[in-house]
């Protein structure tokens, strides 16, 4: 063996083992924080060693270094990168404080932070948006609604005018896993979708995963929306709030034990109905329509190694028509989370949670009195471990168990009523998952994240379960005892992502992800309705499964002032569910006789171009996509465009800091109209005109576009009190976008038919006053 052949080997050896070569090593450890909150998964890059480590869920990191001078570069999604020089000469604790890069009032930043960290991270298809970041985006009703703000990102489509529902990469609205502090939320909207469940003042940020979901997340096909509530300020009391045209809110926060524990409580209520009360028309002023919600969170840092977090949410919508009709619905959520550090390299978080969505319809006409109640209720336990196995390998593993109880409908009546009491069978199921992943820095340039999720869905008695033939006829009806196992569906969901740094400014990534979904919501209406029901997998309803492949290119330009992301994906979906024509959807016991099953596919290209710094900031997002379904029994079994198939979608968002007082913003969106079914003829029937439909979704709604403007005026700012006025104008040029298109006999000439377009929201101004002290 000659020396020359040894040399490369030596270099390799040196490269990989540098830290352990040190004769005298010291331990450097600490916590990465941002405004008091621990920052999970921050990357700590030690420049001299070309070595990266990651902070754990409690923000902690630990590394052994030989004595010397080092440059630490700390970065995290949505944070400004911090550079710090550290001289190591003993074991020491060094904490890092990161600044939210959405922090500046006059700057819109969507915090996908294409900095060094995200270029190198194998995570793709993820966007983080902080509440602070969307502060200046003009949004409908002046509400800084996080569910609407994310609709301005590529690949995420609005489910309807002014609505908070979303379609992600060809998925339907029920295929998004919506988590609030790790608690699943089943109905994320208020007021038919015009408001989301998430109070802007209580929310800290949202991370949206369109692909490459970490293996700890599962249960929905399209996306994960990981919403984190704000932690109360542990140092001082403060109050903030806003008064708007439609709603007002108030938030109180402060220490319970200074520096160690804190609370936050935030409430919001709309008062549309107060305006109704002002109406002189007695028919209108007797109606009610409002919602309220309350968020609460308490954090207790018990000691260095233990932290407890309690989260609660209660929200309710109420719609009433005089004394006759009442509709009430809402979510209740609660959780307790324990974060524990076993050692610098191993820590865990344990979350027990409860979530419930309930909906009640009451009719009392004087000759009829009936109440219909339905609910979905989950009890869940989630255990996560974070183990820094080696300095180049972070392993996460754990399990998640959810017990679902679905009450599809209870009809009760009092006094005189047309109706017999009915209780549709409650459905019970247990959803378990084991997951593990490894984030491995394979080389200087190559990062790999590999994960596996094993999910099982067990359907439990008691109850009758149907077997149904392809025509919807019941073949048999089997009865199961209480607690008896009816069926278990097992799915193995691999998750793989790779990133390769081309140079310091650009990288390429690729990923594959499989997801399985066992809770389904089928809706045959165009609007989000509180009565839409969740249906668990059964003998006939199989788990939905999706496979998604994605590739992407990421580049920072002009000294990180601009960034460009390009992603492309191909996704297939199995066991997609739809209603038969003329389905009767109320009878939950026989619902399987009303269903059809098929498959879906979606593919597209998404481009995000962003200016991150300067007086003018903003982004341009463009999506080119195709979404199709094929279901035997619909459209002659041929592939057809899904309703949410929109070929082009553009969003242009900009903010400009005019001076210290004024900041201006604007957003413009354009998208191809939804695929829709219109008639291709008509005929006489029943003494009136009926319309004749041929193919499913063979037409398009007119293209949708809209400009929104916003302005914020900073009022007098004192040390203890600050306030601002926020103005917005929704649909500034008054585009008559079609909310619906209907067909009818012409009003002035019944021998003709006409097409009627219904438009909502032309020039919708709003003003709100926000304060903080």
């Amino acid at each position, binding site marked *: 063996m000659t020396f020359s052949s040894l040399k490369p080997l030596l270099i390799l050896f040196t490269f990989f083992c540098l830290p352990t070569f040190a004769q005298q090593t010291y331990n450097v450890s600490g916590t990465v924080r941002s405004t008091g909150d621990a920052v999970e998964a921050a990357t700590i890059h030690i420049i001299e060693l070309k070595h990266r480590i990651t902070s754990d869920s409690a923000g902690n990191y630990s590394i052994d270094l030989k004595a010397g001078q080092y440059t630490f570069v700390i970065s995290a999604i949505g944070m400004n990168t911090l550079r710090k020089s550290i001289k190591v000469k003993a074991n020491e604790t060094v904490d890092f404080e990161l600044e939210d890069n959405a922090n500046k009032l006059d700057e819109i930043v969507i915090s996908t932070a294409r900095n060094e960290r995200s270029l190198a991270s194998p995570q793709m298809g993820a966007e983080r948006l902080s509440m602070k970041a969307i502060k200046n985006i003009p949004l409908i009703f002046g509400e800084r609604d996080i569910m609407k703000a994310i609709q301005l990102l590529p690949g995420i489509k609005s489910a309807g005018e002014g609505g908070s529902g979303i379609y992600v990469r060809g998925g339907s609205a029920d295929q998004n896993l919506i988590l609030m502090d790790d608690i699943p939320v089943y109905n994320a909207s208020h*007021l038919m979708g*015009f408001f989301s469940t998430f109070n802007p003042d209580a929310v800290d940020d949202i991370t949206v995963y369109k692909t490459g979901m970490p293996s700890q997340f599962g249960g929905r096909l399209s996306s994960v929306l990981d919403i984190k509530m704000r932690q109360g300020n542990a140092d001082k009391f403060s109050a903030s709030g806003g008064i708007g045209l439609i709603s007002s809110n108030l938030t109180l926060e402060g220490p319970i034990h200074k520096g160690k524990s804190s609370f936050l409580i935030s409430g919001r209520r709309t008062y549309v109905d107060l305006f109704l009360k002002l109406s002189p028309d007695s*028919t209108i002023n007797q109606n009610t*329509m409002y919602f309220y919600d309350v968020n609460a969170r308490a954090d207790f840092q018990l000691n260095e190694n233990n932290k407890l977090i309690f989260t609660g949410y209660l929200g309710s919508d109420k*719609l009433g*028509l*005089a004394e006759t*009709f009442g509709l009430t619905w809402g979510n209740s959520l609660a959780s307790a989370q324990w974060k524990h550090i076993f050692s610098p390299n191993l820590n865990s978080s344990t979350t027990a949670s409860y979530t419930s969505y309930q909906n009640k*319809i009451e009719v009392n*006409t004087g*000759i*009829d009195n009936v109440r219909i109640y339905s609910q979905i209720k989950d009890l869940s336990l989630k255990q996560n471990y974070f183990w820094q196995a080696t300095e180049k390998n972070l392993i996460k593993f754990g399990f998640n168990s959810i017990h679902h109880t679905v009450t599809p409908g209870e009809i009760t009546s009092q006094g005189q*009523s*047309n*109706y*017999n009491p*009915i209780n549709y069978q409650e459905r019970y199921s247990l959803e378990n998952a084991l997951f593990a992943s490894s984030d491995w820095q394979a080389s200087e340039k190559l990062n790999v994240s590999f994960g596996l999720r094993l999910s099982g869905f067990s359907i439990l008695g008691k109850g009758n379960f149907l077997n149904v033939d392809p025509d919807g006829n019941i073949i048999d009806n089997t009865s199961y005892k209480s607690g008896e196992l009816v069926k278990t569906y097992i799915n193995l969901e691999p998750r793989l992502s790779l990133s390769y740094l081309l140079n310091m400014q650009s990288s390429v990534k690729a990923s594959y992800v499989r997801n399985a979904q066992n809770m389904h919501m089928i809706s*045959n*209406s*165009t609007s989000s*309705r*509180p*009565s839409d029901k969740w249906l668990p997998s059964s003998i006939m309803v199989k788990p939905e499964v999706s496979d998604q492949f994605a590739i992407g290119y990421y580049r920072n330009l002009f000294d990180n002032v601009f960034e460009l992301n390009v992603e492309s994906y191909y996704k297939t979906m199995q066991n997609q569910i*739809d209603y038969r*024509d*003329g389905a009767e959807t*109320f*009878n939950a016991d026989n619902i399987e006789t009303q269903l059809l099953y098929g498959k879906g596919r979606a593919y597209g290209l998404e481009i995000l171009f962003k200016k991150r710094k300067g007086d003018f900031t903003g982004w341009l997002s463009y999506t080119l996509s195709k979404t199709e379904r094929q279901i035997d029994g619909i459209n002659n079994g041929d592939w057809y465009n899904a*309703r949410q198939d929109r070929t082009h979608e553009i969003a242009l968002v900009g903010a400009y800091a005019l001076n210290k007082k004024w900041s201006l913003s604007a957003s413009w969106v354009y998208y191809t109209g939804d695929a829709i*079914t219109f*008639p*291709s*003829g*008509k*005929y*006489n*029937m*029943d003494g*009136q005109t*009926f*319309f*004749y*439909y*041929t193919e*499913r*979704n063979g037409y398009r709604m007119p293209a949708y576009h809209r400009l929104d403007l916003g302005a914020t005026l900073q009022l007098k700012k004192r040390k203890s009190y600050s306030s601002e006025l926020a103005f917005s104008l929704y649909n500034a040029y008054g585009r*008559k976008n079609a909310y619906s298109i*209907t*067909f*009818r*006999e012409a009003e002035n000439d*019944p021998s003709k*038919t006409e*097409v*009627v*377009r*219904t*438009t*909502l*929201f032309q020039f919708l101004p709003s003003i709100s006053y926000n304060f903080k002290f």
Partner: protein
Amino acid sequence: MNKLKSIIILFPVLLFFASCEEVITLDLNTAAEKYVIEANLTDKANGAKVTISKTKSFNSTNDFVGITGAVVNIEDAQGNTTRLTESSTKGIYTHPTLKGLPKSTYKLKIEVNGQTFTSNSTMPEVVELEDVFPYELSLFDGPRLFTHVRYTDPLGIKNFYRFIEYKNGVYTKSIMVTNDEFTDGKLVNQIVPPYEFTEESKLKKGDKVKVEFLTLDEPVYKYWFSVENGAQGGGDSAAPANPVSNIKGGVLGYFSAHTIQSKEYTVK
């Protein structure tokens, strides 16, 4: 109940957010013509009537263009076949005396231009129409009179009903069907909602209201129920589709053997 529920849920949204309606033009395709059959047999004389027409383009007029020269036969459970004859109006086939018997099944066979369409329908039992009356309710457009129909649903058997309302002799076009899934064996006061919640559709003093009360079999109920899915051109169905037909051979329409009763009242 379903229909009213969806109206009630949707309406406030449109009310509070000041929507605007406008007639627009839209370029719609014209599909290949398809036969349309509307076939009824009742338990009363003069109730046997079959109309045959075809679909037409969206922009043509709404007048009825009957298809002449069809052979229309109705066969009863005993195998007796009765041919309906074309009336003075082209495309309408009737019989002066043919009527059905409750609990009997009837077969329809239509031959037209070389095509054959068949169907069968079972006439259900008669359920007595007890009363038709107005009752004031205050929903989203203030107090208005709603026509109600009273009947007692027979216990233990599946029943399907249709209510056809006429105001001053004019059909209101509100297609209202129900079953007894929630009302088995109950005394039912069924509301008949108006086609549209407009000022004109409010009942006024002196209005004469007549309701025809039909008992249907399940496939016919399904046909009328699925009309809600967009056949009348409105609604918020995400996937409008043609009503589910009980006629074989590829046509639009239905064959209904039903019982019929009617009652009237005058608004005071």
